[in-house]
């Protein structure tokens, strides 16, 4: 028995010592699963040993640099999903047919919810008035969260969020001024009842709208543009070569790829090459890569400026100009817009720290259309996001 106890103690001590030593040696910068930068050990400074901030840095680094971190996260998620059969792990819900969702948003204070929607509408109205004064049309597109639009595959426990979304849209619509052209993408992205998992307009393991869904949004947008620019070119799905692959979606990434995914359309290329000059960087607008950001525009950038041209150098002055403010939701829409506009400038205020508001950009650049997409993946809406994507924060 004593040998058994000694072996137990030895195993435990060796394990913690090994993990401890390899943790101290760790120099990982990035956690792909969590999508965040990891804390690093600070340099040794004896003079700072009495400083709480310094000690906290060491504690945080120890936690972040722990040996085999990504493997442990993957193992944890695998255990939760595939061994314990959990349908809600961390911030991800596992639906039917391997559809993954953001965890449900629980609205507990309905009056506060209403007040927040009205606050959002008020700042949109204020900024839209400035945009309209500068001669542009202000189009606000609202993307529903995936659980609202793709609700037939939700796990049984999932809160039916359509009511909350409908309420939000109804209050929003009734408070928006005439300066705002409002598009509720729900009507566009919702598939008919009984549609299969592969017919949905969101990626199965990601919060983004897929290429087919974005094409519909783009076409809706272009129908508005055609009211003033009837000759503008509108792309169709048939204009593209589409390639299916397994998407490294954010939900599956958060689960450490514990749920196997099917192949979906991710990489697309126009059948006829598009002439454009990308001013901000040399990245292709339709790229390669197994995740959404790499497949469209090459990532989320503070500023993306693309000028379309007939010969690759000069713009076509007969075409309108568009300015888009949003987050990664807009990436594939931006790529599609390149084919129809003289210039496309998109701003992602999560990275853009210029201090300029949307109205400031519009006043300077005089676009014909301003597309505003304030959505995020974890909530139906939030005042902070509305502020952020108007450049007010």
């Amino acid at each position, binding site marked *: *028995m*004593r040998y*058994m*106890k*000694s*072996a*137990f*103690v030895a*195993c*435990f*001590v060796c*394990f*913690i*010592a090994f*993990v*401890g030593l390899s*943790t*101290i040696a760790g120099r990982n910068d990035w956690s792909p699963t969590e999508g965040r930068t990891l804390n690093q050990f600070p340099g040794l400074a004896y003079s700072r*040993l*009495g*400083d*709480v901030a310094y*000690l906290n840095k*060491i*504690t945080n680094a*120890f*936690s972040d640099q*722990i*040996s085999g*971190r990504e493997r*442990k*996260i993957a*193992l*944890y*998620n695998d*255990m939760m999903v595939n061994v*314990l059969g*959990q*349908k*809600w*792990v*961390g911030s991800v819900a596992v639906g039917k047919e391997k559809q993954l969702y953001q965890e*449900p948003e*629980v609205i*507990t*204070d309905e009056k*506060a919810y209403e007040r927040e929607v009205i606050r959002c509408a008020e700042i949109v109205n204020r900024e839209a008035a400035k945009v309209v004064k500068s001669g542009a049309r202000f189009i606000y597109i609202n993307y529903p969260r995936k659980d609202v639009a793709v609700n037939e595959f939700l*796990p*049984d*426990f*999932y*809160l*039916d969020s359509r009511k909350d979304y409908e309420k939000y849209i109804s209050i929003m619509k009734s408070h928006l001024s005439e300066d705002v052209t409002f598009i509720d993408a729900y009507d566009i992205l919702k598939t008919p009842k009984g549609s299969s998992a592969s017919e949905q307009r969101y990626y199965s393991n990601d919060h983004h709208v897929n290429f087919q869904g974005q094409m519909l949004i783009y076409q809706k947008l272009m129908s508005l543009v055609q009211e003033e620019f009837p000759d503008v070119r509108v792309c169709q799905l048939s204009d593209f070569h589409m390639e299916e692959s397994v998407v490294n979606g954010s939900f599956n990434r958060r689960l450490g790829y514990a749920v196997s995914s099917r192949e979906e359309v991710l990489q697309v290329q126009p059948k006829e090459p598009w002439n454009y000059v990308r001013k901000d960087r040399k990245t292709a607008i339709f790229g390669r890569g197994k995740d959404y950001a790499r497949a469209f525009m090459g990532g989320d950038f503070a500023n993306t400026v693309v000028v379309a041209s007939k010969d690759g150098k000069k713009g076509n002055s007969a075409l309108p100009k568009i300015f888009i403010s949003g987050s990664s939701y807009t990436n594939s829409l931006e790529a599609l817009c390149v084919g129809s506009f003289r210039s496309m400038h998109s701003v992602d205020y999560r990275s853009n720290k210029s201090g300029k508001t949307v109205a400031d950009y519009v006043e300077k650049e005089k676009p014909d259309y301003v597309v505003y997409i304030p959505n995020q993946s974890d909530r139906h809406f939030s005042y902070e996001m509305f502020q952020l994507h108007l450049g007010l924060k």
Partner: protein
Amino acid sequence: MVFSSAIFVFGFLPLLLGLYFLAAPKCRNYILLAFSLVFYGWGGPAYLILMVAVVMGDYVFALLISMTERERLRKLWVVLAVLGNLGCLGYYKYTNFLVENINGIFGTSIQVAKILLPIGISFFTFQAMSYVIDVYRRDVAVQKNPFYVMLYVALFPQLVAGPIVRYKTVEEEIISRKIRVDDVADGLERFIIGFGKKIIIANNTGAMADLIFAMPAVDAPLAWAGAIAYTLQIYFDFSAYSDMAIGLGRIFGFHFDENFNFPYVSRSVGDFWRRWHISLTTWFRDYVYIPLGGNRKGQPRMYFNMFVIWALTGIWHGAEWNFILWGLYYFIFQGAEKLFLGRILERIPRLFQHAYTLLVVTFGWVIFRCDDGLGHLARYGKAMFSFQARDRSMEILSGYLAKYGIYLVLGIILSIPIYRHVKGFLAGRLEHPAARTLAAGCGYLALLAVFYVSVLYLVNSTYNPFIYFRF
């Protein structure tokens, strides 16, 4: 530093184990003391000085008491020591509360800077105070080595959240103790159990409780679910800390007394308090209740003494009205049990005794939890007993159960002494040494698996300190 953090488990602990077991026996206390001071100072080096000052003050008072036989002088020293400890505790823990209430009641505007609470102050002052009182009572001999007194109070396993260890318990072990592989293995077993309880059950039931208690409006199903989740969280959080403390103490050769004895299987409120935070209850019993006369001076005096004890128990937990209310709530139930309820309980089936106790305790934790104003407590309590459910609450609840249900079930199962029964059962049945060794081997493998799974949870979690750190 927190036991359930990566830096403790994979940094502090292996380093300490290595140095401690490789060092010469005479150096071990100093290594333990040095590491204990680092452990305490890690969360706020500024308060390390305060803690050392408190302990050294008590060391000096104990020495002064032991140096004289004059009773009045001994009493003077002990009173000064107690006042010093309580003054320190009062200043750091209750000044802001007192000033806020004076301003609120009298409309004054006395300005006091926000005083931050040193971690574990309620624990280390009580422990240090008990040493001086025990020396005064001649229950223990004075310890002339200041490092040993420091080690007794500052010993890192029990320093910040108990159990409140009496000097008598560790007196001999501080001076001389043997390292036995049995102790180390048993200590590790206890540590791993505590680690798992905290990381797997307490943190997850706590996450559910946090979600529900943060809701601006709840109805009966959600309110009860939140109360049950918190009831499980606080037990698994605090008892896990005690398990880890007792386990770590054992690894280093100290045998601390138990602090919990499956309180949720109690059959009365009195029974519950004999099983919950035993070291605090016995502290108040030995140092306050009995000196006040206990139950030896007639019934009215006994109820008064009980009232004092419960008011103190409440306020010891925190400078908020809800804690005082929580203490008095238990005074009412324990008083009622002594008066008449106890006799009724004896006559009803055991199931109802358990149900009564759990109901009282669960609501007690709601009072304890609502420390952000009595308005929150009133709203929450009203929701619990309104027996009304909104349309969506069952939907919300089923979502939470999908995520946290497994931890609630695990918590409920492990709240009963099933592990102890299984161990006892196997020990009784397995007579052949080989079978016993095999069973022990399987047990240790299971423990290592629990530890590894807990580490997986730890890597996936955010910072989650123990509830009792704030006391």
